[in-house]
């Protein structure tokens, strides 16, 4: 065990030291160049390692994916746009698109609002209280999907009427003398999709809370004090002083969550696998990819997602440009 720990430690040090050395060397290389060149080359050297990693792990597979989306299930023969037309002509797939849209409309907004609520409110507690509240909200993030699925099973599970209910919600209904409800089957008003979103919110609010909390803490105290001395109410301070200063982070969180939600699949997969009209694109991708072994259809779904994300990115870049112009 000790030997193992030592080997591991040495490997870790080599890995971390190596990474630091790379940048030191890259910087040295740039500095050896004539000054005019140095300034021109340096940015590229700084992004080079990041870009190499992205090229191998994301760009190269993404390009293969675009190519595969025009090929058959084993990526051998060209099939033109067949993968796309087949998907889009299926009514089930259109339901899937609609559900995905629902997730995109609801989840990012709620995540940001709730995250902001926790970050701001906890900020006002005594340090111990703040730590405790934040840790509790963060806790679900530390739980793996298997854990989360098990946990929520004990909330939503419906046993046949008359049997002992082991699901919390149905046990509560039982207290009021009501029959159990099979929660995840209730597709009227997409109730079951909403219940799945609750699981995601529960497990991911910690993400938005942590980022927003860092931003809230970054708001300079003197601006708050100034407002307070001027007699602004806490609500006014929040909306007119705090929010404008953390707008950048709010947008970052919103867009990150939106993109995450676009490819969401694990919660849906584990809890319903898209049954009862809860299917979403990410889950459909996964089933095409890993159940049907149809890499053509799977690739086509990813390409659709990549196209759909472009407007969001375009907005983001424009927003930054505008900010810079204002600064």
């Amino acid at each position, binding site marked *: 065990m000790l030997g193992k720990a030592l080997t591991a430690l040495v490997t870790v040090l080599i890995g971390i030291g190596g990474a630091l050395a790379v940048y030191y060397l890259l910087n040295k290389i740039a500095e050896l160049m004539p000054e005019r060149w140095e300034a021109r080359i340096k940015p590229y050297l700084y992004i080079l390692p990041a870009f190499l990693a992205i090229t191998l792990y994301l760009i190269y597979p993404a390009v293969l994916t675009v190519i595969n989306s025009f090929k058959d299930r*084993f990526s051998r023969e060209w099939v033109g746009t067949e993968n796309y037309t087949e998907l889009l002509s299926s009514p*089930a797939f259109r339901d899937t698109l609609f559900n995905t849209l629902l997730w995109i409309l609801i989840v990012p907004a709620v995540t940001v609002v709730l995250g902001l609520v926790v970050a701001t409110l906890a900020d006002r507690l005594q340090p111990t209280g703040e730590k405790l509240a934040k840790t509790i909200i963060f806790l679900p993030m530390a739980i793996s999907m298997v854990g989360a699925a098990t946990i929520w099973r004990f909330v939503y599970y419906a046993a*046949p009427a008359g049997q002992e209910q082991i699901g919390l919600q149905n046990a509560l209904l039982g207290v009021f003398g009501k029959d159990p409800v099979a929660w995840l089957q209730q597709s009227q008003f997409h109730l079951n999709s909403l219940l799945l979103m609750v699981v995601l919110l529960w497990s991911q609010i910690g993400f938005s809370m942590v980022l927003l909390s860092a931003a809230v803490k970054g708001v300079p105290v003197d601006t708050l004090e100034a407002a307070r001395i001027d007699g602004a109410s806490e609500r006014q301070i929040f909306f007119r002083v705090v929010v404008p200063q953390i707008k950048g982070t709010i947008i970052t969180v919103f867009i990150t969550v939106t993109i995450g939600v676009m490819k969401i699949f694990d919660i849906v997969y584990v809890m319903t*696998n898209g049954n*009862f009209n809860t299917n979403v694109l990410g889950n459909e991708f*996964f089933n095409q990819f890993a159940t*049907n072994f149809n890499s053509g259809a799977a690739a086509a779904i990813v390409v659709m997602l990549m196209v759909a994300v472009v407007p969001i990115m375009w907005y983001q870049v424009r927003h930054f440009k505008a900010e810079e112009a204002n600064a």
Partner: protein
Amino acid sequence: MRIPVKKSTSLLGVAALAASLSLTACGGDSGGSDNGNTVTIWSSIDQPVQDGLLKALEAKVGSDIKIDWKKVENINQLIMTKIQAGDTPDIAFIPQPGVVKDMVSLDAIKPLDDVVPQADQDSMIPGTLDAGTVDGKLYGLLVSANVKGLIFYPKKAWEAKGWPTEVASIDELNQLTETIKADGETPWCMGIESDTATGWPATDWFETLVAKYGGVDEYNSWVAGDTKFDSDIVKQAAAEFEQLMFTDGNVLGGREAIASTNFGTAGNPMFDAKPGCWMYNQGSFITGFFPDEIKSDLDANVGVMGFPPATAGGDNPVIGGGDMATLLNDSDNAKKVMAALAATDIGNDAAGSSSFISPHSDFDPANYADETSRSYAKVASESTGFLFDGSDQMPGEVGAGTFWKDMTAWISGQEDLDTALKNIDASWPS
């Protein structure tokens, strides 16, 4: 939480995808087919079955060949990924005929016709070779089987009631259902919830019914996609399912509860002091889910009868599944191991210590550990044909996709039968 049995999405959960490609005991490194006399095997078979088979296998091949047998999680998805990455074992146990077909079309596996001794092929229960046969050649050899279409009942309470322990036809089964209900009891336990694989127990019911009503040929034609879902035979099966499962008072919790009740625990009310339901139609593996006190003495607590044929004494095929050995490397050593796996007595050790059921008709029943296992084996060997689980043979889009999903939608009342059957037909890949 319940983990789906061996279906292609048999996932553990963890970051869902995680499970999908997960292997439990095999390295990300190469299967090591080049390491001289080591033969690597991957399987997702239950550990006790694997241990039993390995013991017998090592005794058979001797010390010249080293067996490196790794238990992996969800072999179906793993093997397809690894084949595309060019990193495979010598022998892989595949539970899904559809995957065996995909492996053939990727040229990843070798035909076994000349590898498996003819005598061992001849001793297989009729039909067990079909699922692993592609274009007339044998590629997947069933080594460890399970039997479906078994009706479990709580033996002690059942005998106290004096109900029949054998039914000769589906009509008699319907009558038995009425008898139980007339006694003020709920005849059936039923649950098809299986998280990512919800719906599969319903497909097993359909397969059993189609096989009993239609016989071997009709069944095979349906599984191959030649007979549509929207056809008389499938509708006949649906009508019987509907009569048994949807009639008021027949199922614990009623029709609404079926899709939300977990298949693993659905049968447990049978063992309550006053049984909540009395019959549960499932595969031989379901006993693993029964409460510990029941499992500790299966023979005393659990009775089992085969799902009856359509007419008394008529054609009576049985549905089952299992793990098929496939050969990815035709080195001499790998072939030797494959031939050893094909022998009838390879199961002698496993039968006594696990849920193993032999696919060979000349396997000695005395090897099985208990009476319950012997009764499954009897159902299989006395059948007029062993038909491999149909949803496992259909293309993934259907067998692990729409067949599960549309059955679930129909049972939970979100689709009518016609829509469900038409949707399944429409999803069949061209």
